[in-house]
């Protein structure tokens, strides 16, 4: 938040930055060096780095351009957390620093370092974005003037359009940390931008591609790291969950990675037992969603590989043989109630969804809408549109 005109609100203070330095061409190992800068506390970490570069060490490598959290160039890790250097105040950074109060700045993770704080976005991030066909494949025939689409559907995709390609989510993706080929949060959020766009003609092809890829939508571990990392509120993991929901629920894609089988097995087991029956979940996720799933060759293979562990668990009294075979179950009356909820909701023609990105949050003192009024608004309620349904 730079004040461009007028006098600064606070007097300049001293801040110490500890920068991670590395020049791969030098043959030297990475190292840390410290720079003390003098700036008003509301100035950004980027301004601090640029002052150090201007006054003490011109060789510091940092990429930046707009300095206003728009261009996405200055993605770094500050005190271990990913973010934009231009979008982090020095006083906030000092408050989140270790006990010594020194602000630690490192290059982003999951991407090779070109020099100091500059990482190779081309080698990782941009390749992955290209992987998802990041352009609109227009429905034919293209209308003479413009496509007419529902407003909510377009508002919905603006969330992923808010991405500034800074790479913060890629930096901290925990699936990518162990599986570098994972398409990753930024590119999959970009994929949703087109999958969710009612004007796009290839939702089915896009989703089949992303579901069948072993490093596609089902490789996400649901860790929320990208949700926290994003400085623009894109919610990449939320977009990945939508891709899964549309792939399975609307496009009926049964992928070879067990994504659909796992979801179907989980959902059915909770309907049938009320509680998760873990002993059934594994074989059904591999072999298919029925009691017979465990006899499928694909299930047999994995069960065999897990057998040693399972036997050990039973021997230690961790699982009783009875539990391993029958699982646990809710009382009948409650199980019936759960089943009724399933039947009512799953028989709706379109999924009923509350998208908080579109609706926002009620004001704290807002009078609640009477139940009858909310119910009569039905499935077409503008407050809770099924944006994904209308995007089909």
């Amino acid at each position, binding site marked *: 938040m730079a004040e461009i005109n007028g006098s600064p609100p606070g007097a300049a203070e001293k801040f110490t930055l500890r920068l991670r330095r590395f020049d791969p061409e030098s043959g030297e190992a990475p190292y840390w060096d410290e720079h003390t800068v003098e700036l008003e506390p509301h100035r950004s970490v980027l301004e601090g780095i640029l002052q150090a570069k201007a006054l003490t060490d011109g060789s510091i490598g940092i990429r930046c351009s707009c300095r206003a959290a728009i261009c996405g160039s200055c993605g770094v890790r500050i005190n271990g957390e990913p973010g934009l250097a231009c979008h982090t105040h020095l006083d906030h950074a000092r408050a989140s620093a270790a006990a010594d109060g020194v602000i630690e700045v490192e290059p982003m993770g999951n991407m090779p370092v070109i020099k100091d704080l500059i990482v190779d976005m081309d080698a990782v991030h941009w390749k992955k974005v290209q992987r998802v066909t990041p352009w609109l494949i227009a429905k034919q025939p293209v209308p003479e003037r413009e496509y007419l689409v529902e407003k909510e559907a377009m508002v919905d995709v603006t969330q992923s359009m808010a991405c500034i390609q800074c790479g913060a989510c890629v930096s901290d993706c925990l699936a990518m*940390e162990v599986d570098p080929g994972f398409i990753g949060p930024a590119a999959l959020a970009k994929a949703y931008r087109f999958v969710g766009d009612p004007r796009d003609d290839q939702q089915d092809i896009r989703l089949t591609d992303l579901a069948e890829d072993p490093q596609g939508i089902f490789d996400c571990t649901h860790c929320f790291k990208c949700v926290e990392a994003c400085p623009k509120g894109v919610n990449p993991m939320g977009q990945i*969950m939508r891709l899964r929901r549309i792939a399975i629920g609307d496009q009926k894609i049964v992928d070879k990675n067990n994504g659909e089988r796992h979801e179907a097995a989980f959902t059915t087991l909770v309907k049938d037992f009320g509680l998760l029956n873990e*002993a059934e979940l594994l074989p059904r996720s591999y072999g298919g969603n029925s009691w017979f799933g465990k006899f499928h060759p694909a299930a047999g293979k994995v069960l065999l*590989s897990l057998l040693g562990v399972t036997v050990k668990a039973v021997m230690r009294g961790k699982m009783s043989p009875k539990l391993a075979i029958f699982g646990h179950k*809710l009382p009948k009356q409650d199980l019936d109630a759960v089943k009724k909820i399933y039947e009512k909701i799953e028989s709706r023609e379109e999924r009923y969804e509350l998208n*908080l990105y579109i609706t926002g949050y009620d004001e704290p003192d807002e009078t*609640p809408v009477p139940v009858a009024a909310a119910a009569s608004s039905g499935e077409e309620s503008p407050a809770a549109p099924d944006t994904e349904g209308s995007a089909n």
Partner: protein
Amino acid sequence: MKVAYWPGCVSRGFTPELHGSMALLAPLLDIELVELDRACCTGAGVIAEHNQELADTLNARTFALAQQVEGAELMMNICSTCQGAQSECQERLDANAEYRGHVNETLAAEGLTYEKDPAGWAGSFTNKNFLWLLVEEIGLGALRAKVKRPLTNLKVGPFYGCYIVRPRDRLGIDAEHPRDHYLHQVIDALGGTVIEYAGMRKCCGFPIITMNKDASLKQAGRHLGDAVDADADCLVTPCPLCHLNLDMQQPLAEKVVGRDLDMPVLHLPQLVGLALGLEPKELGLSRHVVKPTSVIDWTTTVVGAAA
């Protein structure tokens, strides 16, 4: 303190020692557990991935059952994944009165209603993991005063996992409620030594065990290995699903990362129970796949020294 208690599925299934140790520990902490034995699985995010309204309605039903528990002002869970899944649903239910009404219309068939601000509860409806309740309701001072067998010289690595630390806003983590440091604080209050290591707030890998087994076990193996390298005696986790990947699958994780790990993983109530004087066996420590030898040695040594 009386709480509407949601144990979850895994704590009564594959990790029965978790539910068992919580039941033993509760009276020592003056917590009265009223078990929500009519409530169903939270969906662990998977049902929400399938159909948001279904997950929201099933969890609203659980919340409504909790609100019927007389004399309870809080709901408590012992599973991070339950906390994460339920917090996500509660966020939507609380954010929009019209949506809440829509969900309650389905619950009405059973005569149930979820209220954002139920009468008799302290403020709005609150659902806390045992870890949060321990620090915020019981308090670290009171906990420290109850310790009978301090974890002296026991080096404990906190394993938070994901669902209980992210996203911060939804989970109410801020400067006044540093919930992402509570395991540190509890270990310290029990007299143990906190061991920090790279993986303590990373993903255990469990959610993708059926989709990408190799990557899943690589995650578990890497974090366990980091803890070994940091010289931890054991890990402690508030999440039974993390426990499955870190303990039950540890022999497989060892193969994937190509090193011996032999790292015991304790459920949070087990660690607290040990410090409060409960015995390893009654806390179900013998039921783990990785024998918590280092921990049990520690308890016998200390008991021996005190006698």
